[in-house]
């Protein structure tokens, strides 16, 4: 812990006693934080600790219930996003605040204080303005592309480019790398180091411990909306941080026992869609098969093809020896498939519905008699799920909308775990999940495998794949580039296969 | 769909021996208009040498104008127009006349005499008849022109409703003993007249007469009063007098009276045929068809 001592110049930003009360929930209970110019300041805490809330208050997206903010030692009032913009504060929101039907350039230019646009739009100037920022974040797309046509990871890059382009003094990165693969993260870190050199401060929220230690100077830990400590990154280690966050130790890094058997539950032969070609592999009962690749390599596409969400142009699927070809998710579910989609907000959750109803949505048949629901069974199922995933929600009746990102993810995961499908496709199931909960999820995956399910796991984190999987299928531009044993593979070897390019210079990282 | 459209693709221009009569109706979807259309069909049906066509203005002046413009393009031998609105149709009928098309203006007048002849009926006159009838009825009932009146009006802002109101009150205004205790609009609809009458009955211990701007509304008022056991004390008066509606209600003793709004069709066909057959025939500028009270004997 650092005690402020010498009368140094006032910090770039100081928050005192920030309090945020949502109805029924106290998201922040008196948090103090101090951000210096030119530092990367990590914000750490479990799901629901209040990290995003703190960021949103700084960015003017939600008003604080109480507390004061100072910039350069002067007290400021931030009631609207415009106030924050004037103070040079920009934020990349965890749930991306982008406009799918606008172009990439329009997203970047919208209310951008650094782009002096008059009333009339000058398209050429607009695109010229955007290009350098897109290049900096490593996004190789035309800025006239409709944002909604981009991959989720690429959308995240647009959000980052947007924040960079505002010539801000403080940028809040709220899990801005949750859908990015390793190379993109590395590139982003180069950008952040440049910012730091230019005196820009960054608040960096992430659950990826290695990232924290690679980029951050100081770390503030929150727990249950309360301030725990601010520490220097150089003077601490992951275990200590976990203790600060959770209050007890977590065993990390343990490989789960393998449950893989020799019986194939799914055989995929020459699967071809618009995004993948000739993908073949076998998935065994009890096996966790990882899918590695760069953003857009087609990992998720395989799941969508199995689940009837992407048109299959060629190839065969055999499940349990019988040929299947699900044309809709419904048919796929009937055939024993399950899919946890990556974009939980768009593709996964019913935001206005209760946690209970979301978690139970895929097992309604089991909870009802002749279509009439049995409240007892509903409650029991939801409680079991909440306990298993260590879900933190006010009550099973809370609307999912009000949960923190990680708890939303657990709710979605719970929906499919409860259904217990034979083949479960998990598209980045730990996106935005805190360290402790991640371990829980690995445990849950292992339990599903132990029950005899075949699991396919996509992850943006290679260590996660190496840890959880039996084998890893590496994809490169929609084709299988290799199938490796996870016990012997290394991050470097996976990366090499994923990037070894038949078309060099195609930089779609 | 395509088949329907193309399948019936016979030229609208009639074969040389046939002559074209176009009737521009302001709104088919009303019983009164339906009765007109049917009567026209019957009468012109007896003339195989005529092709008779009805255009529906769908209760929209602009629509009716453009339909008459279309009609002019087809150069009919006779054009009959039942104008939706007296100001609106005046111009376009002038253009029909200028194009040399004999044009009969039916039942509702227009602001300029842009027609060959005008076969008219008059809502204000009907209102006056109804007003006088109510005065007489109340005088008979109460010994003098005194009593409580409920008026159920047609759609606000429609000229017919305004005229039926104005005519009646020209007469009623002269009798201070006649009090309007309740006045509500029911948009010509029976279903809407019923709750309005329920409210009138609840709020007024004594009602002598109900004047509704059409027969269905009068009938609705009657049904409600009957249900509350108060129909016998009240005289119900409607307007239009169609054979299967108002006239029937009067015959059944439901309405005390209704006032025929003349269809004008028989006269129009009579004059129209003369115009078609005799190029030199000069009709009068106007034929006024009087309304007739249909009362319970």
């Amino acid at each position: 812990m650092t005690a402020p001592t010498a009368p140094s110049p006032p910090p770039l930003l100081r928050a005192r006693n920030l309090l945020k009360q949502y109805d029924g929930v106290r998201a922040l209970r008196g948090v103090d934080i101090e951000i210096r110019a030119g530092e990367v300041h990590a914000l750490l805490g479990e799901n629901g600790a209040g990290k995003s809330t703190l960021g949103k208050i700084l960015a003017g997206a939600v008003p604080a219930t109480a507390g004061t903010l100072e910039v350069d030692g002067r007290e400021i009032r931030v009631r609207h996003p415009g106030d924050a913009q004037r103070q040079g504060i920009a934020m990349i929101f965890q749930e991306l605040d982008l406009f799918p039907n606008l172009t990439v350039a329009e997203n970047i230019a919208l209310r951008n204080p650094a782009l002096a646009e008059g009333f009339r739009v000058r398209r050429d100037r607009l695109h010229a303005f955007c290009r350098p920022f897109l290049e900096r974040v490593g996004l190789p797309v035309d800025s006239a592309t409709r944002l909604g046509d981009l991959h989720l990871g690429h959308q995240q890059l647009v959000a980052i480019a947007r924040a960079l382009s505002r010539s801000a003094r403080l940028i809040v990165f709220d899990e801005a790398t949750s859908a990015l693969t390793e190379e993109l993260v590395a590139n982003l870190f180069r950008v952040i180091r440049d910012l730091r050199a230019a005196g820009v401060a960054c608040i960096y929220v992430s659950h990826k411990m290695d990232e924290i230690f690679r980029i951050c100077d100081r770390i503030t830990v929150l727990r249950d909306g309360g301030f725990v400590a601010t520490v220097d990154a150089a003077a601490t280690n992951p275990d200590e941080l976990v203790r600060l966050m959770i209050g007890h130790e977590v065993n990390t890094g343990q490989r789960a026992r393998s449950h893989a058997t020799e019986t194939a539950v799914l055989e995929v032969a020459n699967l071809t869609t618009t995004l993948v070609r000739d993908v073949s592999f076998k998935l065994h009962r009890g096996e966790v098969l990882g899918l590695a690749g760069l953003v857009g390599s087609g990992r998720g596409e395989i799941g969508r093809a199995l689940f009837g969400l992407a048109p299959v142009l060629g190839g065969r699927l055999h499940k349990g020896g019988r040929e299947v070809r699900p044309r809709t998710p419904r048919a796929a579910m009937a055939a024993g498939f399950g899919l946890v989609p990556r974009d939980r907000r768009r593709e996964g959750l019913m935001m206005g519905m209760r946690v209970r109803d979301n978690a139970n949505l895929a097992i309604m048949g089991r909870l009802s008699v002749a279509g009439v629901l049995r409240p007892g069974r509903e409650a029991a199922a939801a409680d079991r799920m909440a306990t298993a995933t260590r879900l933190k929600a006010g009550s099973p009746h809370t609307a999912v909308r009000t949960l923190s990102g990680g708890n939303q993810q657990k709710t979605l995961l719970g929906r499919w775990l409860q259904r217990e499908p034979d083949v479960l496709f998990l598209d980045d199931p730990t996106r935005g999940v805190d360290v402790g909960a991640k371990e829980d999820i690995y445990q849950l995956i292992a339990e599903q495998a132990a029950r005899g399910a075949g699991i396919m796991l996509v992850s943006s984190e290679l260590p996660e794949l190496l840890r959880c999987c039996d084998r890893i299928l590496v994809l490169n531009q929609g084709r299988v580039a290799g199938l490796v044993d996870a016990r012997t593979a290394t991050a470097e070897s996976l990366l090499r296969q994923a990037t070894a390019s038949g078309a060099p210079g195609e930089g779609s990282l | 769909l395509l088949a329907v459209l193309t399948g019936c693709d016979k030229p609208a221009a009639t074969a040389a021996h046939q002559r074209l009569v176009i009737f521009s109706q302001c709104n088919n979807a009303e019983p009164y208009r339906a009765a007109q259309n049917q009567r026209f069909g019957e009468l012109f049906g007896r003339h195989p040498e005529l092709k008779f066509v009805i255009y529906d203005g769908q209760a929209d002046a602009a629509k009716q104008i453009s339909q008459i413009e279309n009609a002019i393009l087809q150069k009919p031998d006779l054009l009959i127009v039942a104008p939706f609105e007296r100001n609106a149709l005046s111009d376009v009928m002038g253009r029909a006349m200028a194009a040399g098309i004999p044009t009969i203006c039916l039942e509702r007048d227009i602001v300029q005499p842009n027609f060959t002849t005008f076969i008219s009926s008059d809502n204000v006159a009907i209102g006056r008849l109804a007003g006088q009838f109510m005065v007489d009825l109340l005088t008979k009932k109460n010994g003098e022109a005194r009593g409580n009146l409920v008026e159920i009006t047609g759609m606000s802002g429609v000229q017919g409703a305004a005229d039926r109101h104005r005519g009646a009150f020209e007469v009623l205004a002269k009798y201070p003993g006649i009090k309007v205790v309740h006045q509500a609009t029911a948009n010509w609809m029976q279903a809407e007249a019923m709750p309005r009458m329920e409210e009138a009955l609840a709020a007024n211990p004594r009602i002598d007469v109900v004047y509704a701007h059409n027969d269905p509304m009068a009938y609705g008022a009657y049904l409600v009063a009957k249900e509350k056991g108060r129909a016998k004390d009240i005289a119900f008066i409607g307007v239009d007098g169609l054979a299967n509606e108002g006239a029937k209600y009067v015959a059944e003793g439901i309405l005390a009276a209704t006032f025929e709004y003349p269809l004008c069709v028989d006269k129009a066909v009579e004059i129209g045929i003369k115009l078609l057959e005799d190029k030199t025939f000069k009709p009068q500028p106007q034929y006024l068809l009087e309304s007739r009270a249909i009362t319970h004997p």
Partner: protein
Amino acid sequence: MKECLRRHRDLVQSLAVLGLIFSLAAVCSPRDWRTGGPLFLQADNLTNLLRVTTPVAMVALGMTLVILTGGIDLSVGSTLGLAAVVAALALAKWRWGGAAAIATAITVGGLVGLLNGALVALLRVPPFIITLASMIGIRGLARSWCNNENIGLRTAGDAAVRFVDTWSQKPFMIGLFAGLALLVAALLRGTVFGRYVRALGDNPTAAVYAGLPIKRVQLAVYGLTGLLAGLAGVLTAARTNTGNPNDGIAAELDVIAVVVMGGTALTGGRGGIAGTVIGALIVGILANILGLRNVDANSQLMLKAGIIVLAVVLQQRRAAR
């Protein structure tokens, strides 16, 4: 207990607004000429009010489900008219028995609803357009089936008269509505189908990913709404002793207004039957008191506009963050 109150705060607030409007109506009501008490509070007036509101409220039950799925049904007014005409034709022209006529009319309504549902489910066309088209087309059908004429029932034989006498009774109409409201509420609250209805409207993309039987749900909600519109048509025919092809013109807006005033979001997913019933009562009370006071028709329209906004504002305070 507190939790429960909090959870149903929306409803409590709607009830409060209803209570407020009810009290206001009682205060503003003209006095009864016999007792001197407020006319508005008389049993006869209150039941009048309920009966008048029934057809729109009944259709609003179905519309609530449609809107919860994120859809809309503009065709209900035309369907109501069509059913009224069918019932009247069956009784008066074809001289069918009451039961057969009623069943046929309601079935016709249900078929229109199923057609809407099928088109919504199968074509990638917004429900607004589909049902706007059927609003137009069905009105044409109703008018052409009865040659643009009204069909009287009073003089159309015994079956017709018996039908009219039973079906226009207050206890019958109000009881029917109450029963249906409970039924639909139970359907929405307590069944898998109800969950699917909400889920679909809350997030249609996620509903696809969760493998919900989307097409069947759509078919069901539009079909049910059609049935209810058919029933409302039969009730209207009974009440007016007439089958009028123009019955229910512009009713779709009344129905949607009732649903939205009851707190159901037009974007789908949020709302329920209790709110809709309250919305219908508010609208009914409003029309009734304005009528009782015999406010001039045009001022009535302007007052109504103000009160609608006010009623919704009072209910919406809850949504504030």
